[in-house]
């Protein structure tokens, strides 16, 4: 009967803080979010401001990351672009998590025909190459920030649904769930109060990995011209427009590329640390 202040969060944090790489990842993730939120206060130039006289300037004290072919400040564009990239990441993952958890829970809890239908949809979705599916949907709906969020969300919920279903399948036969049923608990009470609470840690981990993945996907789509459209800037767009000048002005592609790399790496480090931290088998 020790350990009075026990809480799941406390246990996870206790394990997570011993993982240096995950802590660095968490630090970068938080820092990036603050930078994106504070963009107007941290930039001198507005992201769309053109200055043809100062085009393609190398990084200097005036322009930390140089300027592009229209004389726009890359640093400003990147900070504002971070807002787009991060929000696409978060909202896309929010959508996919919502769908994945809802369908996985329904399939796992009720089973039978419903389970069969949902899982066959998952199989079908997984059998179509993801990029192909996304490109098809974007051609159909047209490229825009909103569509990119929606489409990434709609095409990346399947693994989570499978995982949540498996959790529900094993948890619904636990005796505490049975005794809640005998106590007269309704299905929704059992699903939310008893099962979902115990299935949340893997969902949380998958959210963190998902954000990194969605940012990468958004950058790729924007690079291909199928994601966020100019004059909005995202890291993928800056990278894309810089590729024409890659021999003359390396900074146009280097900095956005670095930003994407560091962001996705941080999310993955944090996700991996969390995965180990929530795994009850890895107790030291």
């Amino acid at each position: 009967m020790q350990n009075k202040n026990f809480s799941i969060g406390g246990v996870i944090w206790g394990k997570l803080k011993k993982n240096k790489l995950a802590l660095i990842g968490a630090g970068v993730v938080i820092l990036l979010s603050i930078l994106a939120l504070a963009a107007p206060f941290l930039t001198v130039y507005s992201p769309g401001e053109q200055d043809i006289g100062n085009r393609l300037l190398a990084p200097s004290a005036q322009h930390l990351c140089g300027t592009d072919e229209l004389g726009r400040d890359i640093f400003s564009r990147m900070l504002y672009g971070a807002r787009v990239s991060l929000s696409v990441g978060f909202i896309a993952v929010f959508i996919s998590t919502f769908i994945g958890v809802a369908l996985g829970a329904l399939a796992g809890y009720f089973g039978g025909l419903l389970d069969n239908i949902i899982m066959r949809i998952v199989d079908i979705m997984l059998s179509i190459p993801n990029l192909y599916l996304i490109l098809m949907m974007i051609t159909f709906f047209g490229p825009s920030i909103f569509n990119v969020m929606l489409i990434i969300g709609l095409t990346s919920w399947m693994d989570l649904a499978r995982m949540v279903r498996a959790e529900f399948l094993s948890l619904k036969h636990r005796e505490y769930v049975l005794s809640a049923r005998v106590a007269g608990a309704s299905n929704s009470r059992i699903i939310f109060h008893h099962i979902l609470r115990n299935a949340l840690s893997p969902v949380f981990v998958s959210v963190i990995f998902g954000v990194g993945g969605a940012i990468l996907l958004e950058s790729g789509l924007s690079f291909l011209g199928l994601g966020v459209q100019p004059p909005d800037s995202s890291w993928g767009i800056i990278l894309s427009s810089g590729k024409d000048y890659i021999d003359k002005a390396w900074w146009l592609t280097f900095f956005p590329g670095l930003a994407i790399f560091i962001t996705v790496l941080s999310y993955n480090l944090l996700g991996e640390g969390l995965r180990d931290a929530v795994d009850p088998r890895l107790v030291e």
Partner: protein
Amino acid sequence: MNNKLIVVKDIKKTFKTAGGFFGQAKSVYAVNRVSFEIEEGKTLGLVGESGCGKTTVGKIIVNLERPDSGQVVFNGKKISGLAEKELRPLRNNMQIIFQDPFASLNPRIRIGKAIGETLKIYGVSDIEKKVRAMIKEVGLPEDTYYRYPHEFSGGQRQRICIARALVGRPKFVVCDEPISSLDVSIQSQIINLLKDLKKALNLTYLFISHDLRVVKNICDNISVMYFGNIVEEGTTEEIFAMPLHPYTRLLIASVPSMGAGKKEKYFNRPIDNKTANAGGCAFYTRCPNRQDKCAGEIPELVDRGKGHRVACHLNY
């Protein structure tokens, strides 16, 4: 005072194994025509080896499983086959205590909340007061209320489960092997607690167990189950004084303090599950006294006097 609180009539339950894509689904009889009655205020012991369908019977009574046929009548009202909505008002009259106290408490929910859940569902007032009183009643310290399940030992957890089952003042409780996963030193404490609470709260128990010593201690009547069938039933004294079915004798002989030395002749036969369902006595393959008749004819439960009923072709 002879109010029959629980009447179980001819319940049958088959489980289908998933056959796979090409394989054939197989049916397994878990419960095959089981009937019994429990009078209000009494304890019926349901004994038998693991896998004989005892737990399934318990689950059917509290409506966690639906029987394929047959019915369960609670306090004069048929409850099997009711929709969950019609059942809900009746649910708080029946409770179940499970075998494994480590699996039966939600690890993320504080004890006070867990015990009070059924009260909350039924919109009872003064939940916290009642839960605290119940915690005291099962002999747990007061600060139990705000703790999490993992902070407790098996015996304490089982006390919590008992508190959770009884806080809503049910009339009837299924105790599904409530002590078989506990340390021997704890078992008698829990048994005594169950006995005391039964007296204090005027409860009726269905006590499922494979431990005959415990059953002898706590039960008024006993039904012996073998392979989904009830093979013998009667008062506790009758069953122990004069066990009639060879399976009951085997069970009693296997308890060291009850029948030491007599067991060899029973144990040397292999268990052959395949023939257990085939048109004869289910115990045929293991029976030391079997006769030709036993292979081809299913024995019915026959009264041998004083309500002592046996399903066996042999006359002792």
